[in-house]
């Protein structure tokens, strides 16, 4: 089963995004601030990080930078899910190595198709492929 780390300080977002992803068959983990996000990414090595930009303790840009500059986490795809939509912000996260930029609010279907397009698959990790197959079977 693919693991997705949802990083958002908003409890409700964690709830609805998490539920949506769980319903779609993903294994969902949560982080409530930037520091926790970096820790958990290292701990659980998720197949995708869904990252908010405005976060307490350490903002999303710094989290992204930290993940992409650490060899153990640099391969994890990171998708930004933020209320910010300024061109500058988009440019900045893309240059930092984020895979996609989703602007809140987003519909369930848009979220899922974006997740599916970006999640680490067998092409990038053999182990993931197996889990993916398991998921499909489930």
């Amino acid at each position, binding site marked *: 089963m693919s693991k997705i780390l949802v990083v958002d300080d*908003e409890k*409700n*977002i964690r*709830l*609805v*995004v998490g*539920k*949506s992803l769980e*319903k779609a068959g993903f294994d969902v983990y949560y982080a409530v601030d930037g520091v926790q996000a970096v820790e958990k990414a290292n701990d659980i090595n998720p197949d995708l990080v869904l990252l908010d930009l405005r976060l307490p303790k350490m903002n999303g840009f710094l989290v992204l930078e930290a993940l992409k500059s650490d060899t153990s986490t640099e391969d994890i795809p990171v998708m930004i*899910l933020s*209320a*910010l*939509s*300024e*061109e500058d912000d988009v440019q900045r996260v893309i240059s930092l190595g984020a895979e996609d930029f989703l*602007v*809140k*609010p*987003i*519909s*369930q*279907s848009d*979220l899922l198709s974006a997740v599916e397009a970006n999640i680490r698959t067998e092409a990038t990790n053999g182990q993931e492929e197996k889990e993916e197959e398991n998921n499909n079977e489930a």
Partner: protein
Amino acid sequence: MNIKTLKGKILLGFAVMILILAGVVGWSIYNFESLSNAINDILVENYRSIKASDSMVESIERQDSALLLLLRTSEEQGQEIFRRNEKEFYTWLARAEDNITIEGEGAILEKINEKYFSFVSNFDQFYNAEEDQRWEIYNQQLLPRFNEIKNDIRELREINRQAMVEAQRSANSRANQAIIYTIVLALLVIAFSLIFAFYLTKQILRPIKELEKGIKKVADRNFQQQIEVASEDEIGVLADEFNEMIAKLQEYEKLNVKKLLMEKEKSEAVVNNLSSPLIVTDQDHKIVLINETAKELFSIKQDVINTHFLEVIQAEEIFEYIKNPDAKEKKTFKLKKDDKERHYRISTRQVIDEDEEYQFTVTLLEDITRLKEIDSMKSEFVSTVSHEFRTPLTSMNMGLSMVINEDTGELNEEQRELLEAAYEDVERLTELVNDLLDLSKIESGRIEMEFDKVDVNDIIEKTLNPFYKQAEEKEIDLKFKQSEDNIFAYADPSKISWVISNLVGNALRYADKGKIEVDAEIKGRRVLVSVADNGPGIPREYQSKIFDKFVRAGNDKDEKSGTGLGLAISKEIITAHNGRIWVDSEEGAGSTFSFYIPRFGYQEGKDE
């Protein structure tokens, strides 16, 4: 007698002349009368005496002939002639005696009478004498007596003739005298008339001249004078009235000057206390008026009146704006004041005089820095609020869609209906938040326009693609006329596409059935894009406001409504292109939304 009126003076003058004329006429009549008398005298007195003398001579000569006749033959005839002429002689003698007018005439007549008596007595003696004695009597008595009488009569005639000559001379002299007197009098009348006419003209004209001079001075706005007219006639009254009028005018002018001064001071006070810089320039762009704030802004210390604008203010951009007196939109400029950048909105107004000749340009620079700050604060606020909305909207959207998709269990109809309504509103709210963010970005200039050479037909085609299905469902004939090829504009393709899609989306939203026509064409230096529908149209009162934020035509708040921001955003986009967007619409007959954007190759301030 003191005659006061002009009429009186003129009448008096004429009266004197008439009197003199009457005198001349009277004198002439008198002279004619005496002349006539003199002629009468000659005729009556002397002519009669002469006539009597001549008749007496004739009679006595006939008597002499009778005597000679008697001396020769006929006794009877001779006596008869003698006696008849004797009677005749006495008749004329009596007449002459009745008409004694000259001194000595009576004595002569008496002498004639005596002599004629003896002549007649001698005839009796002659008649009774014998034939031979008759010659003797005739020669010695009758003939000498006859000659004496004749001579006396001649004397009588002569004195009468002389009297006649005397009378004629007297009449002539009288006539001459009359002529001279008449001439003298006539000359007097003429002289008097001339003097009177001269006096009258002078009397009337002098005050009129004075008045004329006065009026001329008044025309030159000299109210410091009074006209001196001593007379009390009509002209005098006129002069008095005139003086009174001048006094009133003087008073009026004083009042006006005072008012003008007050107005001037007021205007100056207003201009100088104006917190915005104000500059007035004339036709040659020379400064006519500049207020303290403007001097401060451009660090002007010296007197700059009558100096060319550019000599004083080195701001070409502003000068270019002022130079073009055509109607134009307000423009903003950045100027440095106290080392801080400040925003000024410039506006000009042409002051045109009565002859509609352009006179002055009033330029006002409004410091809108604070407004700009407030505006950016507002945009910032809108942006923040919108962002804050996005997160809860996300959870609402996703939560609702999960429930509606029955990921959390089955729903009954009622639950579904309610949740779908909620979901719909969440979507609308999302749209609104996105529009608000777009608008605030464009307004604050945070969206960068990416201008390029774009094929307008291509943009329209691509933009319309997603709409055809929707149009078909609503039985609307959506058509791109494409009446011209190769239309290239200088624009940001994604923004123009956004505008077109907003306009088409609106047309679709408000129309049921009918048609929507999109077209583009080149209009000189610009490209005109239009979206025409035959929908319900827009009431006139909304047409000018429809491009403002949150304005929707009519009071429809039903599901047809958009966010009310689409046209506001469209306007911002088109304005950022240096273009113009507007609507032509008639209620019930559809609407045509059109916009201009610069044609490629004609951009960058190359406006028509």
